[in-house]
């Protein structure tokens, strides 16, 4: 728990030891990244024509899930869980789609900003309810998933609406050269600009603190309630990004939440975030989303029945988590 903090403040003075520290701390993420590269190489072996266009498609396809995963990761790091992320994405997606339909390109800018604010508000509502009712997070957010899903249906009863050209353009195609998908850059920039300063700030430290030991955090002067609300607020914000990504990639709004909530939970676990809270970062979960998506692509390329690939994905998820807990158990024993 405090290891993450110590490692950051007391990193070795010289470059190599600092690098080693960094690699040690991020071993899980680096391993996942290695796995991703291996699977990517496999993909080329299976389908030699797999190239830039397909990579761009992959990046566009994973964007909503990646945002949902980031949202879930922040909440879980703070020791909670948000089962309403999929529904919040639905609300924000349909709101954006309804407001942008038949509007000028310029009018879409305030809409996008407004939708992000809406996400913040939804998150604040979730967090405030968790804090003031003292009901377990899982119950509150489960119930709120009904509320937000209902709200999405009120906004837009059936799929429709539209998306501004520039918003859809932001995720399509390459940036600079062919092998750098624009969607990936947009994703990394959004997450990086928000998360990197946050993680280094007091608020970010407080997130990890209440996630690893709420009582200890309280006794060291962290405002637990306020930090929790903040975590859910960030969850709401990234859900709004996810909703916008949905609208941008599909061009419409769909009021029925997809399976993003639970897939996001799966991805963060695969990405090295402990469901107990206080451990993990955002890089691992994002890589995990790409790994899961690429595995699916490979299975499709291999001609595996798409249903069987669901089975394989589920098995991978369980297998990885089992392996992780086996390793932890062995560590505890020695």
């Amino acid at each position, binding site marked *: 728990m405090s290891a993450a903090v110590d490692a950051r403040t007391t990193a070795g003075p010289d470059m190599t030891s600092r690098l080693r520290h960094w690699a040690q701390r991020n071993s899980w993420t680096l391993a996942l990244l290695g796995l991703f590269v291996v699977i990517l190489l496999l993909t080329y072996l299976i389908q030699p024509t797999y190239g830039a266009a397909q990579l761009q498609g992959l990046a566009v396809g994973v964007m909503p899930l990646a945002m949902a995963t980031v949202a879930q990761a922040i909440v879980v790091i703070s020791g909670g*869980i948000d089962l309403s992320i999929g529904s919040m994405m639905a609300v924000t997606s349909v709101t954006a789609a309804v407001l942008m339909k038949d509007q000028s390109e310029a009018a879409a800018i305030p809409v996008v900003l407004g939708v992000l604010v809406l996400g913040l508000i939804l998150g604040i509502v979730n967090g405030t*309810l968790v804090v003031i*009712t*003292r*009901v377990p997070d899982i119950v509150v957010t489960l119930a709120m998933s009904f509320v937000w899903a209902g709200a999405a249906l009120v906004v837009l009863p059936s799929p429709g609406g539209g998306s501004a050209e520039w918003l859809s353009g932001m995720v399509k195609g390459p940036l600079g050269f062919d092998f750098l998908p624009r969607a990936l850059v947009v994703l990394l920039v959004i997450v990086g600009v928000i998360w990197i300063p946050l993680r280094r700030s007091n608020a970010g430290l407080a997130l990890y603190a209440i996630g690893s030991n709420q009582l200890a955090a309280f006794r060291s002067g962290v405002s637990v309630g306020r930090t929790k609300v903040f975590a859910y607020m960030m969850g709401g914000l990234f859900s709004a990004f996810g909703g916008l990504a949905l609208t941008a990639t599909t061009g419409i709004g769909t009021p029925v939440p997809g399976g993003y909530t639970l897939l996001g939970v799966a991805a963060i676990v695969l990405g090295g975030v402990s469901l107990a809270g206080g451990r993990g970062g955002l890089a691992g979960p994002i890589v995990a989303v790409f790994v899961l998506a690429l595995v699916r692509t490979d299975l499709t390329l291999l001609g595996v029945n798409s249903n069987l690939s669901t089975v394989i994905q*589920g098995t991978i998820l369980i297998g990885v988590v089992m392996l992780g*807990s086996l390793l932890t158990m062995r560590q505890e024993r020695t």
Partner: protein
Amino acid sequence: MTTQAGMAPSGGALGVAERTRRLLRDRPLVPLTALLVLLVILIQLAQPGVVTQSWIGSTIRAAVPLAILGAAQTLTMLTGGIDLSVGTVASMAAFIMATQTGTLGPGPAIALALIAALVAGIANGIGVGVFKVHPLIMTLGIGLVILGLMNVYQLIVVQAGTNIPPIVDWLGSGTTLPWLPNNLFLFIPIAALIILGLRFSGFGRLLFAVGDNAIASRLAGVRVWQVLLTLYIISALLAAVAGMLVAGLVKTASLALVESLVLPSVAAAVIGGTSIMGGRGGYSGTIVGALILGVLTSLLIAVQMPEAVRQILFGAIIVIVAAVYTRIVDVG
């Protein structure tokens, strides 16, 4: 906490408010039943004359599968877990039963459905009990695996068609004495077994013990993994029974048949006073919780709320009930 402790009356005599609070805390069934009655009165006011014997019958008939899924959820929640695979397992059992009845006959088809559920339960139990995977992740993953397998299976048996065995049809949708639903014949023994089992059997007490403090129970000699394995098997079998009853009720089976009942089943257990953190709760509350959700749904339909508003109110009510509960239980 501290502020509320300060509010507690000093001296020997307890205030009326405090005494009511304790009654509510120790007998959660009292306020829950009051809420249920209140909802029934509301629905009668909203639409005079709607509350008839047959309305009561059909409300109970619809609530029974939810209550059985709620049983699966209650038992897993008592150990601090959750079973999100109940919907998939229930749909799977119903689908296997419906597609195999034509070729194998009703008895073997039902047996096959239960065996499939047993395998799912063993998988969940091994993951949670032996490998200590978080129940949320384990049951979610198993749910994905089953869904994929069932989609493949569906393509294989596509020409078999679905037949609901007469006995399941009778149990699921039939009524006796014009309005008494037949599924009660199955439900009452199950409910009695669970309620009495939780209170009087060693296994029931082990569930509470593991949920209260898994480490302490392990140190006290409990083989926690065996308890969890048995628990998830029971949970899967209950889900299978609920799935087949739903198939009997709607007279068809599909792979998404019971999926919409998963979150309400968690809600029923939570409303019924079972703590998701484990160690506290019971099944009688869940039954009333399932009935409350059933009556609530028909109330919202009676006042012609659109589906969207219904969902919003549904969620809001769960939060409010759970919040009130937590307030009551936390004091003292």
